[in-house]
Each structure stands twice: as structure tokens, then as C-alpha cells.
């Protein structure tokens, strides 16, 4: 295990952060606006989100760089700002974290499908390698919310060119038991392929709520000797008066998270619908 991870995990389970997008929306991000662009235009508000997680007790916070690869930024007319946006993302999270938290930089998928020929393997590798290099000042890289194992594998290889520890996390929400990725991969296949590609931590995030991720966590735990990372949603989204709401409360989320701890998960946090209150509740439930 790399020294950053060994040091973090020494005392036991690590609580990470919650969702960023919904928090940025609460601060005025408009529908359809690129959240990552705010690293340049509204760094103060992005810092506010980072700070809220550090203050809630997150020992690892991410960065507002989920979409900051060249392919995705191109859709927002920001392809020429890849380096700036990523660097700013790390700087912002670092300034909020200080010595209290580690900064793991977020890398999301391109949103294009390799198997439909929308992008080539070379283009995907180059885009992730470029983004990863611009995130070099982070403590680790988190490849999150990937749905295609092949794209995740390429991203891990690209991220490893930085020499930083790499967490690789996929969405499991398909199949009758909700234990497959969109492309049909099982936790065992994901753990095997991503470990082989060089990942230092294997994970699952988004797509499902806490309860549904416990069996996935157990299977990842059994399939690999690497640490496991899990960030579920606050349940499944529901529509109320034209607004999307997540029904799981922080207390319920944290109570169910005991199952992740029992399963031997190393990093626990939240995805869509979670807030700093969820991080506080995780603390109370898991580390008390």
C-alpha cells in the first residue's frame, strides 16, 4: 500500500465526503451549468463546499474536477481550460483541507461510449493522462462513477502515470440483483480487472442507496486484498412537487453504514443527495 493510504488507514476506517453538485446548486449553480467551471469563476463558493465537509469531519475530501477531462469539458466549451480547472480544483480543496484532511482528486468518466466508437481508446487514455497530470498536487486520484469497465481500466492506467495512489470506483445498479455495472460486469470482474490495471483501492459509488451497496461491498472485499471504497447515494431519488428529493436521512444512512464497517470497508462516504450532515452522522455511528 502507498504511504498516503497506509497513514490514513492506520487508525482504521476513514470517513470521506458527501455530494458536491447538489451543494453547489444550493449556492447558485444553474441547471446545465458546468460545475467544474466554477473553480475559475466562483472559487469562493467551491471552497465553501469543501470547507463544509472538512468541518463535518471528512478526513478525505475530493475536488470539483469530476468532469474536467478534455472530452467532457469540450461539451461545455472549456476544452482549452483543462489544466487551469484541474489545478484550481486541487488548490481550492487543499486550502479548505489544510492539515485536517487529505485531498483526493476526482476524475469522472468521459460520457462517451468506447464500444459505440464515439471515442477511441487512445483518445480516452490521453484525456485522462492529461487530467491526471494536472491533478498531480493532490494526495491521490479517485476515478469515480465509471459504468464501463473498459473505460475505467484505461483511466486507471492513465492515472497511474502520475505515481499517485489511485482509487477506482464503479456504479453497480444493473441486473436483477443490482450487482452489475451498466455494461454487466460483476464486483469480482471489476476488482480483478482494476487491480490488474494498477488500482490501489477498489470501490463502488452512486446508483444505489446504502442498503443495496452492502452486498456489493462484501463481494468487493472478498474479491480483492486491496482496501475498499464505498459512497452510496442517499437512497433513490424521488419526485416531490417537481423537485428531486432523496428520502434517506443522515441518521438512517449512518445506521445502515454499520454494515459497511462490518464488511471491512476502508473508506466510507456519500454520493448524490448526501450532505455534511451525513458525514457528521457517519462519524457518530462508525467512529464513536
Amino acid at each position, binding site marked *: 500500500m502507498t504511504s498516503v493510504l497506509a497513514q490514513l488507514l492506520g487508525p482504521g476506517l476513514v470517513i470521506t465526503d458527501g455530494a458536491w453538485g447538489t451543494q453547489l*446548486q444550493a449556492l447558485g449553480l444553474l*441547471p*446545465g451549468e458546468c460545475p467544474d467551471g466554477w473553480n475559475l469563476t466562483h472559487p469562493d463558493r467551491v471552497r465553501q463546499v469543501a470547507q463544509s465537509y472538512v468541518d463535518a469531519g471528512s478526513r478525505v475530501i475530493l475536488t470539483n474536477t469530476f468532469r474536467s477531462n478534455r472530452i*467532457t469539458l469540450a*461539451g*461545455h466549451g472549456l476544452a482549452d481550460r483543462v489544466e487551469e480547472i484541474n489545478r484550481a480544483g486541487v488548490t481550492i480543496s487543499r486550502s479548505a483541507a489544510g492539515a485536517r484532511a487529505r485531498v483526493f482528486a476526482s476524475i469522472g468518466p468521459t*460520457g*462517451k*461510449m468506447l*464500444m*459505440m466508437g*464515439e471515442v477511441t481508446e487512445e483518445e480516452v487514455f490521453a484525456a485522462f493522462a492529461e487530467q491526471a497530470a494536472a491533478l498531480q498536487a493532490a494526495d491521490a486520484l479517485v476515478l469515480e462513477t465509471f*459504468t464501463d469497465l473498459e473505460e475505467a481500466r484505461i483511466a486507471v492506467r492513465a492515472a497511474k502515470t502520475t505515481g499517485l495512489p489511485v482509487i477506482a470506483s464503479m456504479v453497480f445498479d*444493473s*441486473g*436483477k440483483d443490482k450487482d*452489475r455495472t*451498466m*455494461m*454487466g460486469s460483476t464486483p469480482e470482474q471489476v476488482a480483478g480487472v482494476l487491480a490488474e490495471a494498477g488500482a490501489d483501492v477498489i470501490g463502488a459509488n452512486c446508483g444505489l442507496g446504502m442498503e443495496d451497496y452492502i452486498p456489493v461491498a462484501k463481494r468487493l472485499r472478498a474479491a480483492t486484498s486491496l482496501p475498499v471504497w464505498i459512497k452510496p447515494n442517499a437512497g433513490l*431519488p424521488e*419526485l416531490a412537487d*417537481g423537485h*428531486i428529493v432523496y428520502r434517506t436521512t443522515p441518521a438512517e444512512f449512518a445506521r445502515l453504514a454499520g454494515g459497511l464497517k462490518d464488511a471491512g470497508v476502508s473508506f466510507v462516504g456519500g454520493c448524490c443527495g448526501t450532505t455534511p450532515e451525513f458525514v457528521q452522522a457517519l462519524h457518530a455511528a462508525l467512529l464513536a
Partner: protein
Amino acid sequence: MEDLKKLYDAILTGNFKIARETTQQALAAGIDPQALVQQQMIPAMDEVGRRYEANEYFVPELLISARAMKASLELIRPLLAAKGAEPAGRVAIGTVKGDLHDIGKNLVAAMLEGAGFEVIDLGVDVSPEKFITAVNERHATLVAMSALLTTTMNSMKTTVEAIKAAGVRQKVKIMIGGAPVTQKYADEIGADGYSNNANAAVALARKLVAA
């Protein structure tokens, strides 16, 4: 007929080269193109859909089967058109205004093409006006809208309203889909249907054009 079963199998297993070859051979042998579609190709895609619903197939298998189906249809469609046969329907599909996510939309488009629909792909970040233009100028009979984000989902509502305001609501059926979308939302905004995956979207599209 042994050779025609090969076409069925090629589509079921997503082998587009064999699908194309067997189609060419069948057509050269004088087999009725309509019969090929009805007796081999559509049943093959129906079986693909059944396997998907049964969790035996996942998205990659759907995609390669749809691609094989498309390869075969490309040879057959001109012959059907020459006989005056219309496509199953004409769909204008797009990810709504403000949303740049196109994986779900592309999956549905591929499956609809595989099912014999003519697909007008309007891309991502599609304004209500573009959907209306596709109805007026390209004679789409079905509008299919996708959104991944809860924040952009509302563009579906404004698009339905714009289609009504443009006076063409009665000309089209409207179907919607995407991660945050539900049947309840479809009802609320006055869409004609919702589906939660690319396979179900085909069944829905067939139902809507038949209605």
C-alpha cells in the same frame, strides 16, 4: 430454412458481418425482404430484448445485436422503400436543453434503429424549437427525450409545452427517459410514455405508434 436461421442467430449473437452476408445471400436467392424482417430479424431482436429483461444480456449485448440488425436493415430498407413500405415510425430523439449526456439517448437510438424505426438524432442540448422543426420539416411522428440530470429534467416539461404552443402536439407521441425520470413525471408533464431502459423504449415506441 437453415440459411435464414443463420440470420436470426447472427442478430441474436451480434455478429454484424454474418448478418450482412446472410442477408445478401437471402436477397440474392429471391427471399422476400419483408419476410426476412418479420420472420427472422424482429424475432431475433425480441429474443435479445427478452434476454436483456431476464438479465442474461446487458448493454454491450444489446448494442452489438442492434448493430447487426442495422447492418442487415441497411440492405433491406431500400428494397422495402421501393415497394412503398414505410419505416416502423419516424423518431426525433435528443437529450434536452442544458443536458450534454448522450449515452442513454444513443442506446435508445440504436435500439430503435434496430427495431426498424427511422431515427432522427438531434444530439444533446436540444432546444424545444429543434424538436418542433423535426416534427414540422422531417415529419417525425414520435419525439423521444432524454435527461440524466435532475436539474435539466425540467427542459422536458418546457419542450412538451412548446410542442403544444406550436400547435403540433396532436401530430406526435412523446416519450421520455433517463435516470431521474419516472412514469409519474411523464404523467405530470403530459408525455405519452416513459421507459426506464433502451429495450423497454422499443416496446413503448411500438405501442405509441400503433395507438
